[in-house]
């Protein structure tokens, strides 16, 4: 295993070095965008997730409901993130038939409605199942 690890480190440094060499001419323009990801995540996104988790624990003491709602929130956040470049378009390419011509806001709203209907149904069903199996073991 030691050999594999050493080889991986050496290859990794070589590949990243090659990438850095290719990146060099663009670095002044890309530096802000490169550092923004980790900074926004560590200072903003992750603390928000943590706070949301704490709040969820207070609001929903039931474990089954908490799991389902947490999953719903995670999927909602994913869909919202993916929708950002479709809805917020500061410097887009020239208008073009067939490109970005959907009604993204309505589409997103429909997906989120379906998602939360699924979350509520899923939580209710697994709660009911858990109760039933608990009742069975009691007998």
């Amino acid at each position, binding site marked *: 295993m030691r050999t594999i690890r050493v080889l991986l480190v050496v290859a990794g440094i070589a590949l990243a070095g090659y*990438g850095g060499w290719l990146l060099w001419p*663009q670095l002044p323009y*890309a530096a802000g965008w490169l550092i923004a990801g980790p900074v926004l995540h560590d200072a903003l996104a992750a603390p928000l997730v943590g706070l949301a988790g704490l709040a969820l624990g207070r609001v929903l003491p039931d474990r089954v409901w908490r799991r389902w709602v947490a*999953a719903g929130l995670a999927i909602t956040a994913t869909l919202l993130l993916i929708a950002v470049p479709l809805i917020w378009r500061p410097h887009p390419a020239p208008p073009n038939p067939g490109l970005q011509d959907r009604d993204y806001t309505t589409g997103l709203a429909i997906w989120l409605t379906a998602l939360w209907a699924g979350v509520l149904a899923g939580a209710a069903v697994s709660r009911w199942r858990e109760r039933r199996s608990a009742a069975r073991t009691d007998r």
Partner: protein
Amino acid sequence: MKAPVPRPEDFRSPAHTPTVSARLGLWLGVAFGLCFLTGVASHYAQHPPGWFSWPTRPVSLYRITQGVHVLSGIAAIPLLLAKLWSVYPRLFIRPPRRPPALVATHAAERLSILILLCAAFFELVSGLFNVAQSYPWRFFFIQTHYAVAWVAVGALAVHIAVKLPVTRSAFGERPDPDRRAFLRTAWAASTVAVLATAGVTVPWLRRVSALAWRSNGGPQGLPVNRTAAAAGIRVPDDWRLRISWPGATHALSLADLTALPQRTATLPIACVEGWSATARWTGVAVKDLLATVGAPTDRPVRVSSLEAAGLYATSTLPAAHVADPLTLLALRLDGQILSPDHGYPCRIIAPSRPGVLQTKWVTRLELLR
């Protein structure tokens, strides 16, 4: 008073454990690996080095590799966030003060992770904006996205090397129900993200995928990336297709082209942005055309467009594509004369090629050495 900066042990979520991180890391590694391989393949298809030749079969090859590229990138977005949440407490490990060797390895590992995260976020975010054809930055996307991909795989290899022992023991342990629920959520988010966008390239999902950056629309029912207006195209009345090779030049009018034997092929047009659509194209096979005017048919051909400027005003058809009977100089799309946005009077359509190289508004074919 509470301490202003939390410590790793302050985090109580069941997600914060190597059994979860290692599994997410494996899935993320697969997604990034697919993204990297298909991305490099696409780069080579567009800028082939001397030793490389992109195959002409299957005709959907580029459609598939590029579809995998964008969808594995989409799938990686929730996986990356889940993985980072899993390891977030480690950000608050206080660095060691001594001995110097330990301080140095700790700093080196932190630096390698910072580089990995800069590169990973950059690739996902810049790719996502690029597929939406939105460019809120000043760097050159193609060059930068390609360069940072190498940084990402390099940093990933170092990270795997560092974490290999932890990962191995983590896979020996089965996660408890709460941890399995977290992993299932990450899977679900990834699947939903793919379904919400896969309609760009999977026909039966076109109506379902609300966040696909392409629809079924477009002139003649087929999307385009660059309209005739955007490219500033005006087809002159005396338009001729010029075919030249050392020692000869040949000019054909549109009537001449229409009079030649026509061939019909069903071929996809597959863009680097991952969208693709299939259509029925009719025109003259490039190989037949060259043979008709007496030009050699075994060489690469430079195709020039009426477009005066722009990155894709010319393209080079590799010899393998020139020799392929399915490579057409198309005059018709689904039976109708090409609309201006699809490249009237004629365009190149070849099997298994990036869409940006399917040159439109063709005015000249030049045989290269």
